C-alpha cells in the first residue's frame, strides 16, 4: 500500500489535536492548550458557516440557470439568503456611509445579537416559518402512528409503540383533570391513582429506562467513533 507523506502529516495533526483535546478533560496541564484548540474550532466553524451559505447559494443559482425541477422555489431561497445577509450587513454599512458623507469618523455599529435588523428577520421570518414547520410535524407524526401498524404488520414493537403513544396521549388530555374536590377523600385518592398511575409509571419507569438505554448505546457508539479517529482507523479528513 502506498503511503502519501501528506496523509501522514494530516493524520498526525488530527491524532495530536484529538489527544490534546481529550487529555484536556483529564489533565489540568493541558487545559490551556485545549481551550486554544477549541477557540480555533469556533473560528473555523464560523468560516464553515460562510462556506455553507455560499454552497447553498451556488446550488440554487445553478438550479435557476439550468431551469431544474422546482427552480422557482430556489428564487425564494436566494431571496431569504439575501435578506438574512443584508440584515447582518446594514448596521455595519450605515455608519460607514454616514462617515463618508459627513467626513467624520464612523460610529460603532450594533452587530451580533443586538442587531435590530437581524432580530426583525429572526422574529418575523425565521421564527414564524419554523413554528409553521413544527406545526406540520405534529400532523405527520399522528398519521405516521396510524400507518405504522399497517406497514409493519403488527409486530410486537409496533403494538407496544402504539399502546404507549395512546396511553401517554390520554394521560396528558385535560379530560383527566376533572374537578373531584366534592368527592370523599378515599374516592379522590382512588380516582387520582387510577387516572394518573399508568401515565406516570410509563413516563417515569419504562420510558426513562429505555431512554437511558438508548443514550448509553449512543454514548458508547460516539466514544468508539472518537477512538477510531484517534487511532486513525477512520480518517474523515482526507484520503
Amino acid at each position, binding site marked *: 500500500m502506498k503511503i502519501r507523506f501528506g496523509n501522514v502529516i494530516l493524520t498526525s495533526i488530527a491524532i495530536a489535536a484529538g489527544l490534546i483535546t481529550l487529555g484536556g478533560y483529564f489533565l489540568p496541564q493541558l487545559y490551556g492548550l485545549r481551550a486554544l484548540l477549541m477557540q480555533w474550532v469556533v473560528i473555523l466553524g464560523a468560516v464553515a458557516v460562510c*462556506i455553507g451559505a455560499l454552497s447553498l447559494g451556488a446550488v440554487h443559482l445553478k438550479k435557476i440557470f439550468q431551469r431544474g425541477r422546482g427552480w422557482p422555489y430556489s428564487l425564494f431561497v436566494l431571496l431569504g439568503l439575501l435578506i438574512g445577509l443584508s440584515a447582518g450587513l446594514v448596521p455595519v454599512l450605515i455608519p460607514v456611509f454616514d462617515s463618508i458623507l459627513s467626513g467624520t469618523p464612523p460610529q460603532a455599529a450594533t452587530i451580533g445579537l443586538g442587531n435590530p435588523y437581524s432580530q426583525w428577520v429572526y422574529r418575523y421570518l425565521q421564527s414564524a416559518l419554523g413554528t409553521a414547520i413544527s406545526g406540520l410535524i405534529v400532523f405527520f407524526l399522528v398519521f405516521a402512528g396510524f400507518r405504522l401498524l399497517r406497514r409493519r404488520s403488527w409486530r410486537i414493537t409496533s403494538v407496544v409503540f402504539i399502546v404507549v403513544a395512546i396511553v401517554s396521549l390520554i394521560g396528558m388530555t385535560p379530560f383527566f383533570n376533572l374537578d373531584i374536590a366534592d368527592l370523599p377523600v378515599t374516592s379522590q385518592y382512588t380516582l387520582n391513582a387510577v387516572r394518573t398511575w399508568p401515565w406516570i409509571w410509563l413516563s417515569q419507569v419504562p420510558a426513562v429506562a429505555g431512554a437511558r438505554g438508548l443514550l448509553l448505546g449512543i454514548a458508547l457508539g460516539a466514544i468508539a467513533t472518537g477512538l477510531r479517529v484517534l487511532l486513525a482507523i477512520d480518517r474523515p479528513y482526507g484520503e
Partner: protein
Amino acid sequence: MDQLIGLVTVIFFGSLIAIFWLLALRKGAKPRGLRRIEAFESLPATVGAAVETGHRIHISLGSGTIGEVSTAATISGLGVLDQVASVAAISDRPPIVTAADGAAMLLAQDTLRGVYHRQNASEQYDPLSAQVAGITPLGFGAALPGVLSDEMVAGTVLIGSMGQEAVLLAEAGRRADVTTVAGSDVPAAQAVLFATADQPLIGEDLFAGNAYINRRPAHLASLRAQDWMRIIIGGLIVLGVLLKTFQLLP
C-alpha cells in the same frame, strides 16, 4: 474522581478495541458474526436498485455540526457515505449528499472526491453533489423533501444528528415512494423515525454502519468492544441497583 473514572473508562474502551483488532488480525482468525440490522442488510440492495434504474441515492448527514456533541454521528454518516458512494459514484446519476453545516459539507465533498479519485474518475466529481440544504435544523428538514422530489432519488440514507424534523424527510420519502434508511443520535428523533422510516436505526445501530458494510477488522473490533462495554456497564448498573436496594452502599 469523576475525571479519573472517565479517563479509566476511555483507556479501557480503547484497549478493548485494540485487543479485538489484534485478535482479528491474527492468522486464521475467523470473522465474528454480527447481529441482524435490517437497515444495513437492505442497504446494498437499495443502492443497487438505484444504480440500475438510473436514479440517485441521497445521503444526509443530518443537521449536526463538526466540533460539537453531534460530531461522532456525522463521522459515522461520512463512513457510510464512503461505502455507498463507492458503489454508486460511477453511475449515470451519482449520489447527492446534504448537510446543514459547512464543515460537514466540506468533509462530505472530501469523501466524495476521494471515492472518485480511487476509481480513477476524478473528472466526474462535482463539488455541488455535496451541499448545504439548510442552515438551521428546521430549515434543513424543510429542504429535504425538495431534494428527494427534484433530484430523482430512489433511496435515501440519513445517518447523523437530527431532531424531530427527521419526520419531514421520512414523510417525503413515503410520498415519493423512496426507501428510507434513517438513524439519528437524538432519542426523540429515533422514536419519530421508528414510526416513519422504512428501515429505522435504533440506539447505537447508527454507529455500526461501517462494520456492517465494509467488514474491516478494525470496525468489527470496535463494534465488538462496544457490545462488551454495554454488557459491562449494564452489569455494573444492575450491581449498583442491588447494592442500593439492600442498603449495602452508603
